[in-house]
């Protein structure tokens, strides 16, 4: 055996090289997931409660929605807002599993259910298995964009876009809001509140059948199929109170709606650390290091309980080619 020992050792190196990578495990299966965010000046929203599934199992409401939980929100003034399981309210055949809706008692003033700026809200969830999840958010101050400007590439103001307050839904048809793709810059200007941690932009193409405004040669057909009609930016600090829209976020002609959110810290941390939202894994890392655990700020579970205030505008994009 002595003579063959080096050969056996060498072969064993190769044998160990034929092992298996464990890319999935079940360490975090069955955790409570909270999905809730409050928008200032809007009614208390539905709250989704679910559980984590195995990595290979789709996390759909049917698979992971949590039923039978007790959900409530209490604001800093002690006002309590109870939620009910949507399946109980709307019927099991109509309602998705895990969605909880705010209960508005008969005679209650709907204004009381509007999210107020600067107010603290505490969420408590108790599941049917007696597990407790808690989270807190402080709604940011109102966001009011002062100007939606069209600039040239020298950053000179060319014109101003009209917003919903001025012209309502005519934002999509009036001349001021007709924008040629890539021919100018669109910039939002506002008073930046120092208490707001961060800002985020969402973009929505409202015409589901509109044509592509750009069709780059280096795109394959499946690349076009994967382009969504809505998208969101990463988080911005916007220290100078301006946010500029990049044209690579606009793929279609037709009607567009932009929303700018002033978010709380929970929302900001969530978006900057969830890989599919942040696009992390770039500079300054070893290859593959971008997959990391997000920041959730949920006690007893994972997910998001955040808040934001929002302002928006609409316009129309055309391609002159």
């Amino acid at each position, binding site marked *: 055996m002595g003579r063959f020992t080096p050969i056996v050792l060498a072969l064993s190196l190769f044998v160990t090289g034929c092992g298996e990578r464990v*890319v999935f495990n079940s360490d975090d299966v069955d955790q409570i997931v909270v999905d809730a965010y409050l928008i200032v000046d809007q009614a208390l929203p539905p709250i989704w409660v679910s559980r984590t599934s195995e990595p290979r199992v789709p996390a759909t409401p049917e698979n992971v929605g949590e039923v039978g939980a007790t959900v409530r929100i209490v604001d800093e003034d002690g006002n309590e807002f109870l939620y009910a399981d949507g399946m109980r309210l709307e019927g099991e055949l109509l309602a998705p599993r895990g969605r909880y809706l705010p209960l508005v008692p008969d005679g209650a003033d709907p204004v009381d259910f509007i999210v107020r700026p600067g107010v603290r809200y505490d969420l408590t969830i108790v599941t049917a298995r007696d597990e407790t999840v808690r989270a807190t958010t402080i709604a940011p101050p109102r966001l009011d964009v002062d100007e939606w400007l069209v600039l040239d590439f020298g950053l000179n103001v060319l014109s101003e876009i009209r917003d919903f307050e001025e012209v309502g839904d005519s934002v999509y048809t009036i001349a001021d809001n007709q924008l040629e793709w890539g021919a100018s810059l669109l910039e939002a200007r506002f008073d930046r509140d120092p208490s707001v941690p961060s800002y985020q932009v969402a973009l929505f193409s409202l015409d589901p059948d509109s044509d592509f405004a750009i069709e780059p040669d280096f795109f394959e057909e499946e690349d076009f199929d994967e382009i969504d009609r809505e998208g969101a930016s990463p988080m911005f600090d916007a220290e100078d109170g301006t946010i500029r829209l990049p044209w690579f976020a606009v793929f279609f002609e037709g009607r567009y709606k932009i929303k700018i959110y002033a978010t709380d810290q929970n929302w900001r941390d969530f*978006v900057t650390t969830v890989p599919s939202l942040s696009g992390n894994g770039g500079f300054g890392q070893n290859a593959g290091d971008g997959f990391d655990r997000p920041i959730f700020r949920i006690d007893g579970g994972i997910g*998001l309980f955040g808040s934001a205030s929002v302002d928006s505008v609409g316009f129309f994009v055309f391609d002159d080619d």
Partner: protein
Amino acid sequence: MRRHPRSSAARTAVRFLLFLVAAPSVAGAADLRGQVVDAETERPLPFAAVRLEGPGDARDILAGTSGRFEAEGLAAGVWTVQVSYLGYLDLEVMSDVQPGAPTDLRLAMTVEAIKLDTIDVVGDRNETEQELQTSLVEIDAETLARIPAFGEADPIRALQLLPGVQAASDLSSGLYVRGGGPDQTLILFDGVPVYNPTHAFGLFSSFHPDLIEEVTLYKGAYPAQYGGRLGAVLDVRSLEGNRNRTRGRIGVSTIAARGLVEGNWGDTTWALGGRRTYLEPILSALRSNDPEIPTYYFYDTNGKLQIPSANGSTELRFYYSQDDLGLDADEGTSVDLRWGNFVASGTHRQLLGENAAATVSAWYSRYRSDTDLSIFTTPIGIGNGLRDASGEATLSWALPPRHKFTVGLTASRYRFAYDEEFNQTTNIDYDANAYDVSAFLEDTWRPTASSSVRMGVRTRYLSDGDRIRVEPRLSLRQQVNDEWTLKFGTGLYNQVLQLVSTEGFSGTDFYLPIDETVSPSRSLQFVSGVEYVPEPEWRFTFETYYTNLSNVVLLNNDVSADRGATKAEDVFRTGGEGWASGIELFAERRAGSLTGWLGYTFGYTRRTFEDVNQGEPFAPKYDRRHDVNVVGRWQREKWEFGLTFTYGTGQAFTPASGRFALRNPATGVTPNLGELLAADFNSARLLPYHRMDLSATRSLTIFGQPAKLSFTAFNLYSRRNDWFVTFDPEDPGSEPTIVQQLPIIPSIGLEVDF
């Protein structure tokens, strides 16, 4: 000393080439030292066998990797110096060795026309190991050139084959030394820091292989003359120039063409070389059919001028490297990425009497990287640069018979620039200066003939934060007998320059200083080792190391897209801690027709950050438990074969531990089937890595000039090793993608000397 029968018979040409070069005397009277070189190329001949016969006891010495040897305490009188080296005619010279300044010989050996089949052991072991330092590795140019390489011979790739040194991937020439990242290794070129010496996005280094004379790596516990990094020091020394005639070399590989010319004007020597890719015509032809073919080229050039003077010499050097990638696609989309280095330096060495010498140096080292993107007409620009203007002075003096002191002062002015622009908005425009003034004092003490102690301290003043750091260093060596030597080293190190490096894409690497908002990173190292040299051609070492890290920083990627952060506390995750520990075994055969080494490392590395992995310790990606390297070189007549084999257990990665459903709060849309949840950071392992490279080199003549034709197979059996794992966050049914590393890559090269 036993001689090969053929060398005894062939002992004919006795050439007296005595170059008396005045050099600092580091010990007392009757010392002899010298360097063995090739008479034609002036290249040093490593591990040449030297025998001294004279008024005292005969001595057998094995020269070092630079061909240098030293003998102290000789009886005064005429000594016979006999030198033998495989493939060369034996050389014998006489030298009158007297007390006072050491006699310095330059022994130029002539190639023997008849190749030897084998070589016997070159003699009884009767020498003392001159090198005090623990964890020191020296590789000569000849060895570097013969290690199978991907396209171009590369000193850094060669170092990755040593125990304790790893590569992150096939696409990275970064050095991961004893559990530290590439940011923890100081890279010097002729003593001057170079900040991003890479080509082709880190595929290989930008050091011209023909212009390298020697590469020295301190893997840990490095001495007081160096500072600024937590882990290791790599010192690349360039060729000095041919003292006899003008000669040169041209070479071509599958990637680049290179040239070298060296010569002399009287006593002044010079060397000049350059290298450039030649793929552009091919890419240009392809681009005419497909505009999306990128343009890419790199080039580097460096030169040295050495001017001797009375009891001294002056050296002037320059180094320049540049990479450029460009791509013009459709719809206002383009990429332009450029990065490069420029170094200009000068050094004057002067003898000050018999026992003292001084060195004065000045240098300017600049690194710059610029990235200009346009994505569907949206412009994005990132630029970063570092300028280092420094002056350094050292003074060495011997206090016979036991002490040698060295003091030094280095003053550096750094200028950092970093700018980011997105869609016509400037997010960051950072421009700052920082100063670093360091002084060191070191005593090399030989209490006995068989023991040495090197004690040193380095004191640094850092302008950012107005800080002073004191860094003690200690190295001990005890020769137990002719065969066994014990070594120990320790030191405290601080680092303020942080390198943010991306594996496989080094063109965007940038440096940021630790400023007054964050404490400098610190490491405390301990190294111990045993060396066993039973015969001159064999060497066995066993070393252990432990490194403790504090105030470690990590780039914080969880930031806003338009962050204007320039303070260290905003850019980095701070307050990290870590440690690394391991053992290394090394067996080397240094002479004979078959030479090479076998290295093994067993090691652990851990880091802890409050905001990473919920504050629990984690393994960095490059934490490998076992690492084995085999390097062999076999010479037979006109052929020379090289083989390397590398095996390493799997690197760390983060698996997925669940899936969850959460809407994008800005759009209200839920990813189709949920989002993967990351498990504990780097808690799983990729498959083990192994690869074999093979080279075959044939010596021939072309138009009467000596030439070498080489064939290399990188990754001979084309194992597609794991590089990293990616997950498709939106499709739970799909398997994760295992991104693989390089397949077999054959290459051919030709070089001709003239």
